[in-house]
């Protein structure tokens, strides 16, 4: 008999259909033929991972169809085996994979859509945090405003795409006919994604707002973030929205913290 380690290493190869796997002679005769028995273990492993990817990327799955999705997912799984038993942690390399997946090249925005779905997933599972309300900014002295920094809710994600992803997203979430939208006209998307209580919210941003929040999330002070976003627009609306959505958990003054 093999050692336990040799047995499991060769069992893994058999499950993954790789060379060096266990064969019929490694198992006692039973009611289940070797190939059928190994197929059950193999199917369990792949079905669970394909389902996990399908749960994480439901829009990709709808756009390409169940059969194609399973085909792509199998390819992905073979190249990216899980390193953790926590399936919520699995599949963050899928957007890059699907973007470069040959048979999916006719739908060029799949990679970006997968990034949006991953952002949704990560926002759903991110840590909880107490947020500041809209009044918080009013308590900051006018002279200190330009040197404050914001701490953002752990669920906040920014996403930029050359494709207008939001229409497909919304159609999917309203059980709409997303197949009709599959041929979307190119149009950019700049999105702030975050969790508000138990829902995921997406706010569309214009280019200045996007650059502004990008700089703020990188830890830059308000004055610098505003400069980096062009500096000739009124950030009042986006600031009110950030607080209104609950995107900010703390304001750091140069001399200490607010709240």
């Amino acid at each position: 008999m093999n050692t336990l380690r040799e047995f499991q290493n060769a069992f893994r190869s058999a499950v993954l259909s790789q060379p060096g796997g266990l064969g019929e002679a490694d198992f006692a005769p039973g009611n289940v033929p070797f190939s059928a028995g190994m197929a059950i273990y193999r199917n369990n492993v792949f079905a669970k991972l394909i389902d996990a990817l399908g749960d994480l990327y439901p829009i990709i799955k709808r756009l390409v169809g169940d059969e194609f999705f399973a085909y792509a997912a199998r390819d992905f799984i073979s190249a990216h085996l899980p390193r953790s038993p926590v399936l919520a942690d699995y599949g963050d390399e899928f957007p890059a994979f699907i973007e470069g997946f040959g048979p999916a090249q006719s739908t060029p925005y799949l990679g970006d859509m997968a990034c949006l779905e991953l952002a949704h997933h990560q926002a759903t599972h991110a840590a909880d945090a107490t947020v500041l309300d809209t009044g918080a900014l009013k308590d900051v002295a006018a002279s200190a405003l330009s040197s404050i920094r914001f701490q953002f809710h752990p669920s906040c994600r920014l996403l930029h795409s050359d494709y207008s992803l939001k229409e497909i997203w919304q159609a999917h979430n309203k059980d709409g006919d997303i197949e009709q939208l599959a041929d979307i006209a190119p149009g950019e998307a700049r999105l702030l994604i975050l969790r508000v209580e138990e829902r995921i919210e997406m706010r569309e941003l214009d280019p200045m707002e996007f650059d502004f929040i990008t700089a703020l999330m990188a830890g830059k002070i308000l004055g610098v973030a505003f400069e980096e976003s062009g500096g000739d627009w009124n950030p009042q609306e986006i600031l009110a929205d950030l607080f209104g959505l609950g995107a900010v958990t703390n304001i750091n003054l140069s001399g200490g913290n607010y709240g």
Partner: protein
Amino acid sequence: MQSLAIKGGALPSAHGKDPVSPSVGIGFKPVHYDAILKTKTGIDWLEVHPENYMSPGGPFMAHLEIMAERYPISLHAVGLSPGSPDPVDAVHLERLKALVDRFQPALVSDHLAWSRESDVFLPDLLPVPYTKEALNAVCDNVSHIQDVLGRQILIENPSSYLRPQGEEIDEVAFLIALAEQTGCGILFDVNNLYVSSENTGLDMAAYLAALSPEIIGEIHLAGHKRETSSGGDILIDDHGSKVRQAVWDLYSRAIERLGPVPTLIEWDTDIPELEVLVSEAAKARAIIEQSILERGNEHAA
């Protein structure tokens, strides 16, 4: 042998704290969250896979908190891989410990199986060859898990499709030795025994006769499906249907022998309405009650 922290009946029951009254639970599924909040289920406790609740935050964690305020929780792990020759993944064990500390579960369990090979996790419960080498490895891992968690765990008998060549110990003896050497309890999955028996020829009567009530902390019941091929029938443990009558029959015999062991209904694929799970649990409760009644009558006679 260490003393057992948990014996049958340690979980609370809807019928009071009487240790011989039935205690039945169901696997908690997020899809049933609203229904459980709105319903008087008559269920005594809920079980979840801790691997589904290891996120830093968010609604799933919040919902489990709310469930835990209403029901005792059992954490039924699938990722510790106690059957590996390597020590348990330290990161995963720490994440489990954080959940145990937070939710103070009534029961913690995993399987007599492996799912990790080197640095890769295969999300299934793969067969451990029943050898002395494997027994030592599983004992080391279970002892370590119990040391880190600071509590007893239960280990579940697997459903088998293939058995490795050259095994040295039979399954039930392996489990009993594991319990004796580590002080762990056994989670006796009646459906798994039935499936393994049909697939690999395990002797169910001998298996049941070898089990003693002191080491059984929980029973699992679930549905399986039968696939017919040219080579004969294969039973697949898919947790996707009601408990089969043959498994109910085996369960009745198990309860007769083992007493009122806390019993859980599992359902993981094609999940039905909550009331279907609740009615399966009620069926288990009725079998335990009938058994208690018969025992009482025997005593009276």
